[in-house]
């Protein structure tokens, strides 16, 4: 599958909602050259399910991961999807970027379209405090259920408290060891 075709389909489906679409080609291989193309684009949060459904219609769809990061007033999510596996060089990596205001960090779940996204959405709930309306399970995957902080939030007021405790514990541990010796 060619990246242009994927980009055309996304543009046709989303229209103006698809912002700053970008094709990033790269040549790979030493003796046998091949061009791998990635698509990077920005999509408003309400259009994420529509964009994922469009990609699913193009061919077998795989979600690698949702990356997330606290960018000040907003939380930035990056959906790294790959469409069209099965043939040599046939898969196109599509990264959809979306911004959620911190006052209302919600984005519709894509588990209904792509059930494999559940683990990564649950991870974003616990690490960034993002909510995914429509997700089948929302309990923690990696962090303890009773941990009240979201560690990847840069403005998390409680986080330093937990780090401080961690450092205190380490100090105490070292002291005990030196006393023992």
């Amino acid at each position, binding site marked *: 599958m060619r990246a242009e075709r994927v980009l055309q389909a996304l543009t046709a489906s989303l229209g103006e909602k698809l912002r700053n679409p970008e094709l990033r080609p790269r040549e790979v291989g030493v003796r046998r050259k091949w061009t791998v193309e990635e698509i990077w684009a920005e999509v408003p949060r309400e259009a994420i399910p529509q964009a994922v459904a469009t990609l699913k219609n193009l061919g077998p769809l795989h979600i690698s991961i949702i990356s997330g990061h606290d960018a000040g007033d907003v939380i930035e999510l990056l959906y790294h999807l790959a469409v069209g596996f099965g043939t*040599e060089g*046939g898969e196109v*990596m599509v990264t959809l970027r979306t911004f959620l205001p911190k006052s209302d960090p919600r984005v519709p779940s894509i588990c209904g379209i792509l059930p494999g996204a559940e683990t*990564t959405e649950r991870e974003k709930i616990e690490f960034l405090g993002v909510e995914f309306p429509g997700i089948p399970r929302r309990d923690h995957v990696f962090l303890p259920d009773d941990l009240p902080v979201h560690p990847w939030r840069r403005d998390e007021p409680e986080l330093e408290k937990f780090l401080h405790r961690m450092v205190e514990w380490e100090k105490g541990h070292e002291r005990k060891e030196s006393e023992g010796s």
Partner: protein
Amino acid sequence: MSERNPRDPNDPVLPAVDEVREVELRGLEAGLGETFEVPIGPIHPALKEPIRLTFRVRGERIVGVDIRTGFAHRGIEFMGMRQGRNLIQVLYLAERICGICSVSHPIAFTQAVERAAGIEVPPRAQYIRVIISELERIHSHLLWAGVAAHELGFDTLLHLTWRVREKVLDILEELSGNRIDYAIPIFGGVRRDITPEQYPKVWEAIRYYRGLQEQLLDAFLNDPTVEARTRGVGILEPKEAEELCAVGPTARASGLRKDVRQDRPYLAYPDFEVRAITPADYGLTPLGDVYDKIVVRLLEVGQSLDIIEKALENMPEGEITSFPKIPALLAHLKKAEGEGLGWHEAPRGEVIHYVRLVSGDESLLVWKVKAPTYSNLMSWYPMFEDQEIADIPIIAACIDPCICCMDRVYVVRDGKEETWTKEKLLQLSWEKTRRMRR
């Protein structure tokens, strides 16, 4: 080998299981069908972290499973994103995400950073990265095959596979200095070259494994016990594998031709024309059971040998890194601004790293890591459904997490707790093998 259908009642291997099933059904009719919970874990370290699997069972059958992870979440991404760590320090962290795929994560991470910072990798360095990662695949698949044989109660096969695995570890030690954590990739190239004296040793290892290939395939695939214990067990249908975004041999055993080296080539992989292997390449109809996962992994050992051979024959001459001096590399990385994705087909499936660099800061702004088991976690749900307790070890092992340290099982029955050790679970598994042999 003829076409197989694990649900075929006339299959000569299956009546023993069906008889057990019939007894269970009679029990259910008599009102003995209450369900109870069997929690397993949480010590279970071959995932990024240990895991707890809580099974709901009725008689010997699993009717549901709940998976809980995170008992040893080390927060590696969080540590990598903290201020004051430069990228080379983070590379050491990336190398230690997994002990078995200890070159897969650095390869994906260095590619992500190289794309973000616009660094080129010399051709010879690309070939060396490919050779090391394929050697790693051989050692990982043989390790898994041995563990699988042990879970089935076939320890002779475990010792055979682990004995032959030593050869590839010796070669990795010869090339990198270490049996694991090879520290080969660095941004812009590799840290060690393959010297002319080392070539004959690698060729000898290739000949050694070529000679063993038939023997290994025969020992695993034509053994009635292995076949009886793995056929029709832990099935992942192709549709489920696709929807749940399974990766690596787990997806390929279900018949999906999904391999990052083929689908989205990177480094020097286009030179080797890699094609994803499914059981169809062995003349079988893919079912997605444990047997098919053995087929795929053993065939991939042969595929890796092909790739290493071709790489050694066509190895380009030249530099092994575009930044021979580390201070120059660090200065370049500090100035770089941008984001990048790096991927790699690890022995277990797709590894992906996303990074974002900011000019003037030597630390990472964003780092996200995806290990293959993260994608395969969801595949466990359909695989465990309607299976027997005695098959838990082999099904849990078939996506290739390491189950060796699964330490205990609590059985809560009639409100009373009873501790089952891993030995007892394995005992159940071995007893099943013996029952089937009779």
